């Protein structure tokens, strides 16, 4: 006989409805909380833990000897030497200035920068064979941290460093199809071996800013390299762009603004291809005047202007300032690469890589894999695509124009080498007051049929005379790679 079903009449059950509802509410709330905790641990924990405010990482250093950073061929770029009888540890950088900015430094007082900072957790984690760890535990020895294998190529980096010479500037070389960064050099540089002793001097050197990574953080006017973006916008807005013609007589005026071609050269009758190859300012100012500005801005933002850039090192956002209310003068200036536009060498390399890779920008990365200190692989990174920024037809067309730059245009110094090259040169004015001061740019890629390397170079503050500085430096770097 079931008495209990009788003891709860329907009134009771209805009365308990609210109790049940309240129970469900709180249970669901707690399930949400647990879900959030799991999400935090899986997705966000690593980012949070790497924050510079986290003192725990310093504590890891008490039990672990910081791991090494090596290039793709195993050359040591950074390591901790345990010396002396007291087991004192010093961080050594065998290549000194060459890798200063991309590897960064790690100091207990000054903090960490570059890859030393990004991979801090890995370098202070030890995946040594567990029996060895056990042994070390008992003999109270420190374990050795894991080794970070980068995608960098020490020979190429050295070549880039040498090629830049005494110029201030930056160079970056990437693999077109994978997004690996093979070299990243910024000058003037500093010796991270002496970072502590040179610190106050380095910080107060405002003229040279040696601590600045010019590749990722340098914001420069793009100069004629920006014509790539203008061309793409023109192609998207005019489907009969192959029939574009312009008669260049060395200058163009609109209202009270006059734009001159470089050195006042009159390029004569041009189509889009020759405008691009000759880097004709007048032609491009003309193109700019005919563009719908909202779509122009959209094209620039498709190419990641005004947006965060992918990659592990903090990169400055590039800026494209035109909108519907811009004056014609501003439009003409921006179309040919001046105006308020700013861009970093890193971003230019990403754009070149997108063109070389058929329109798909790959995720740039610096860390090839992580191994334990004896070399057994723990984790490997694979190439990933980041975003399709243009169609493959558009990319192929731009590739053709960039080839023309080397074949018949301003980049002809790269012709006739053991490799084929394509790209865009640029001369960006940055000061009208102090005489004509310009930066020299080059961005491009090699092996046009099946793009191999992507390169982006800038040299600061050349005078107008040696306009091909960056492209010559690029040539030297590429020669070192291929020969």
């Amino acid at each position, binding site marked *: *006989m*079931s*008495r*209990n079903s*009788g*003891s709860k009449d329907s009134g*009771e059950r209805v*009365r*308990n*409805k*609210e*109790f*049940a509802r*309240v*129970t469900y509410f*709180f*249970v669901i*709330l*707690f399930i949400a*909380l*647990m879900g*959030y*905790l*799991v999400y*935090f*641990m899986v997705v*966000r*924990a*690593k980012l*949070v*833990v790497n*924050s510079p*405010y*986290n*003192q*725990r990482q310093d*504590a890891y250093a008490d039990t672990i000897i910081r791991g090494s950073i090596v290039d793709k061929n195993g050359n040591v770029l950074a390591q901790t030497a345990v010396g002396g009888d007291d087991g004192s540890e010093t961080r050594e950088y065998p290549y000194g200035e060459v890798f200063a900015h991309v590897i960064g430094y790690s100091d207990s007082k000054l903090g960490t920068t570059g890859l030393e900072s990004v991979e801090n957790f890995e370098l202070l984690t030890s995946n040594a064979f567990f029996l060895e760890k056990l042994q070390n535990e008992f003999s109270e020895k420190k374990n050795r941290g894991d080794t970070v294998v980068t995608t960098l190529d020490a020979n190429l980096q050295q070549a880039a460093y040498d090629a830049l010479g005494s110029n201030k500037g930056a160079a970056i070389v990437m693999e077109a199809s994978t997004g690996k960064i093979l070299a990243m050099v910024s000058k003037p540089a500093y010796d991270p071996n002496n970072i502590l002793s040179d610190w106050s001097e380095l910080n107060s050197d405002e003229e040279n800013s040696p601590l600045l990574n010019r590749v990722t953080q340098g914001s420069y006017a793009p100069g004629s390299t920006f014509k790539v973006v203008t061309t793409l916008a023109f192609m998207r807005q005019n489907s009969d762009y192959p029939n574009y013609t312009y008669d260049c007589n060395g200058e163009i005026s609109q209202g009270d603004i006059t734009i001159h071609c470089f050195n006042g050269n009159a390029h004569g009758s041009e189509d889009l291809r020759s405008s691009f190859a000759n880097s004709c300012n007048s032609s491009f100012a003309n193109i700019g005047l005919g563009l719908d500005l909202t779509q122009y801005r959209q094209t620039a933002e498709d190419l990641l202007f005004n947006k965060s850039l992918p990659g592990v090192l903090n990169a400055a956002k590039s800026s494209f300032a035109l909108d519907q209310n811009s004056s014609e003068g501003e439009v003409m200036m921006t179309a040919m690469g001046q105006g308020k536009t700013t861009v970093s060498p890193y971003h230019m390399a990403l754009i070149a890589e997108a063109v070389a890779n058929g329109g798909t920008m790959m995720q740039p990365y610096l860390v090839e894999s992580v191994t334990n200190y004896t070399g057994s692989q723990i984790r490997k990174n694979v190439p990933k695509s980041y975003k399709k920024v243009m169609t493959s037809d558009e990319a192929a067309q731009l590739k053709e124009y960039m080839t023309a730059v080397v074949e018949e245009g301003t980049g002809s110094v790269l012709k006739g080498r053991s490799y084929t090259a394509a790209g865009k040169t640029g001369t960006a004015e940055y000061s009208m007051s102090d005489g004509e001061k310009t930066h020299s740019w080059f961005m491009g890629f090699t092996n046009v049929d099946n793009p191999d390397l992507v390169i982006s170079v800038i040299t600061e503050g050349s005078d107008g005379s040696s306009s091909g500085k960056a492209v010559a430096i690029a040539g030297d770097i590429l020669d070192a790679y291929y020969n």
Partner: protein
Amino acid sequence: MTFLENWTYVYAAVGGAALLIVALFAATLGGAKLSFNIGPVSLQPSEFVKILFVFFVAASLNKSTEFKNVVVTTAIAAAHVLILVLSTDLGAALIFFIVYLIMLYVATRQPLYAIAGVAAGCGAAVIGYHLFSHIKVRVAAWQDPFAAYSEGGYQIAQSLFAIGSGGWFGTGLFRGQPDTIPVAETDLIFSAMTEEMGLIFTLCLILVCVSCYVMFLNIAMELRNFFYKLVALGLGTCYIFQVFLQIGGVTKFIPLTGVTLPFVSYGGSSLLSTMIMFGIIQGLYIVREDEEAEEEHQIEMQRARQRNRSRQNERRRQSSSNAKSGRSRQDGRDRRREYDGDNRDRARQRERDLRNESGRTTGKKTTKSRPRFEDVPEQRQQRQRRTRSEQRVR
């Protein structure tokens, strides 16, 4: 214990007075006036007032759920909350508010009250945000603890570092760094635990707390006395909401408030009041068992009485053909007896008839004064058999 539900205004008065004392006289401790010292002992009254508050609301709503009474109750509850807000104990204020809201909703069964309460709460939160600077600080710290690091964001930041560094299995006991976590023994105990014992351990801890809560509400649902139901609901909500505030705050799920994790954090007042809460609910559980046992006993008695009455009528009809006086004596015994089948009883009756016939004098009246020895184990067996079947049904 029915006097408890009549002391409505006693609870309110004592609770309100205790809170006022804290607000006016206590030492300012870490930005919130939370406790005062009596000699060597430091007392945090808001922990105990929680219980008085629940009793007050339960008693008041048990009396009547008409609108007028609801208004009066709300006014007094609001007074409690306001005193707490003014003494800047926002965590306790929030707990009181939510407990009251839920008890009101369940007692009146009007979802409108819940919605209106939530709306009022949001409105009050917005007003409070603009009025009090420390609320602004807390919200800014919640949104981005690293940006607001030096202005209170460091608490959540260190808490997140601890949780992140612990990983799934923790760093191991004694290997974490709880000294980098501010207020690690009380308000941020969850992070310290996750760091050393791992996230899996603390997820299980959360499940334990939730299961305690579900049991509390289960007891509440099983009770019949409405006052006790409300008390169980109120205390259960009090407990679980405090757990939620603690864990949600340190994990950046919600802004951080200064509440402890019941039974886990260090703190005498918190421990004592949580023990009292659990004790009260355990007492209610026993009351429920007693209530049920009492109910069932009464129902059985009723049914037995009915059966006896029907059998009596039968036997009266039968006994008219039988002149033995012993049989009428046995009717009295039958009334006391609780039995399953009629046949067994008739057989036993015949046995007794025979024994009585074999020479006992009728003057001895043994059958009425006490049960015969053969009867007692039979009764006991039958009761055991019955409780076993009851358990199955329950």
